[in-house]
């Protein structure tokens, strides 16, 4: 200690204070940014826990037509084929999230946004969609259409 000159001591003190100041500044900026960033992202809303939905009577769903309905928060498309069978798929395109539509003439599913095409089973067959549409299960119980999640088993 004793062999340090006065200016050297001053310098050391200054750089020490500088470090404290800089650290303090960084901590201060972080303590402002962190709560703001957290504020900007909305809280997760509880997933609406829907297991199945009731779409009414089979007789009231015309053949070769489709309907988009809500399943929890997500829209799904329910199709009744010419044969009378039902098919339920997620309605949002796997490309960029547009709602798809059922093409009666070809029994295909089409997305208008970038001309994506799926077959009736939801498999992507042309255009930009990278994945098939997720499947939902359709059961007929006492003449009613019940759509539920596919069980993964």
């Amino acid at each position, binding site marked *: 200690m004793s062999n340090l000159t006065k200016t050297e001591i001053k310098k050391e003190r200054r750089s020490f204070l500088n470090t404290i100041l800089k650290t303090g500044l960084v901590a201060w900026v972080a303590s402002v940014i962190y709560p703001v960033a957290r504020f*900007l*992202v*909305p809280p997760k*809303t509880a997933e609406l826990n829907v297991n199945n939905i009731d779409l009414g009577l089979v007789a009231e769903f015309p053949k070769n037509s489709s309907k*988009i*309905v*809500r399943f929890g*928060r997500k*829209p799904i498309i329910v199709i009744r084929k010419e044969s009378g069978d039902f098919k339920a798929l997620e*309605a949002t395109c796997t*490309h*960029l*999230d*547009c*709602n*798809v*539509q059922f093409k009666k003439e070809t029994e295909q599913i089409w*997305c*208008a*946004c*970038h*001309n994506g095409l799926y077959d009736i089973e939801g498999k*992507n067959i042309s*255009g*930009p*969609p*990278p994945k098939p549409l997720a499947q939902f299960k359709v059961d007929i119980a006492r003449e009613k259409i019940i759509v539920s999640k596919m069980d993964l088993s």
Partner: protein
Amino acid sequence: MSIYEWMNERIDLDSVKKFALKKRVPIFYGSVWYYLGGVSLFLFMVQVFTGILLILYYQPGAETAYESVKFIISRVEFGWLIREVHSWSANLFILFAFFHMFTVFFAKAYRKPREMTWVTGMILLMLSLGFGFSGYLLPWNELAYFATKVGSDIAGAVPVIGDFALRLLRAGDEVSGATLTRFYGIHTALLPGMFTVVLGIHLILVQVQGMSVPPEIEKIPEEKRKSIPFFPDFALQDAMAWLIVLNLIALLAVFFPWDLGPKADPLASAPAGIKPEWYFMFMFQTLKYIPAHVLFIEGELFGIMLFSIGGLIWFLVPFLDKKANDGIRTPFWTWFGILLIIYMIVLTAWGYLT
């Protein structure tokens, strides 16, 4: 004592006046280009003015937004005019900003010492696109709804931060009334504030550094070059250009109104013929023709990478085109600009014709 003298005693207006009078505008074949930045500025002022008027009646929210815009255009006196002017001026604003950018590019005005002017200009262009994207959703109609779904989904595909960005933009997992409120805040508070600050820097730089001329003109000796004073000569010409543009907007607003279309419905299919705003068309069209998978990456991600890299190169042009500092035109950069314009025009036209 005049007001000028009164103020001059306190804040030295004379030096400001002297500075303003010193500025000259070069006269050569490209002098008309100097109007483009000014016209963009004027259009921004029109947007601020009409935007503030719209705020007085507009009500964000999934149940009120569409209805309030309908109210503005059908019930409020001259409401239709204010909305039409805001919509048309928004489009012209982006158009002129693009024109301005390309003339500046080919004049090589970004070369030393004006790198920062180019960079602030690019930031302004990004903010303008942000204005367009966020404003487009506000009427809460069908087209806007799907455009926003697609646009925010693209943000969601960005690696690492995608999920965060998507929830940040949408204020949730889906495009909903919460998204609308958020876009309203972005459109009418966040962006105007940021834009004003960056615009201020951009304009100060232009004032301090004066107008640049292309390298060919710069080679002519100073005494042989023609110029006119900015005040009052060029300022009056600018005013004339602004007046013409204002008339153009009025004509467009009256004869080519923008449709409001049907209200957004989360349970409707995206309608056939859906299109984004024209200035996003070339990107939209590209996304349409990128296959589902390119090599091992998803097409969507490939598209994002393509545009990010392209955008970044364009942003950094002053630092990449080093030869421009010596007044040399490298064929590479000339072709880069020309091909970019051709690409944008061809894909846009293609998008509208198919």
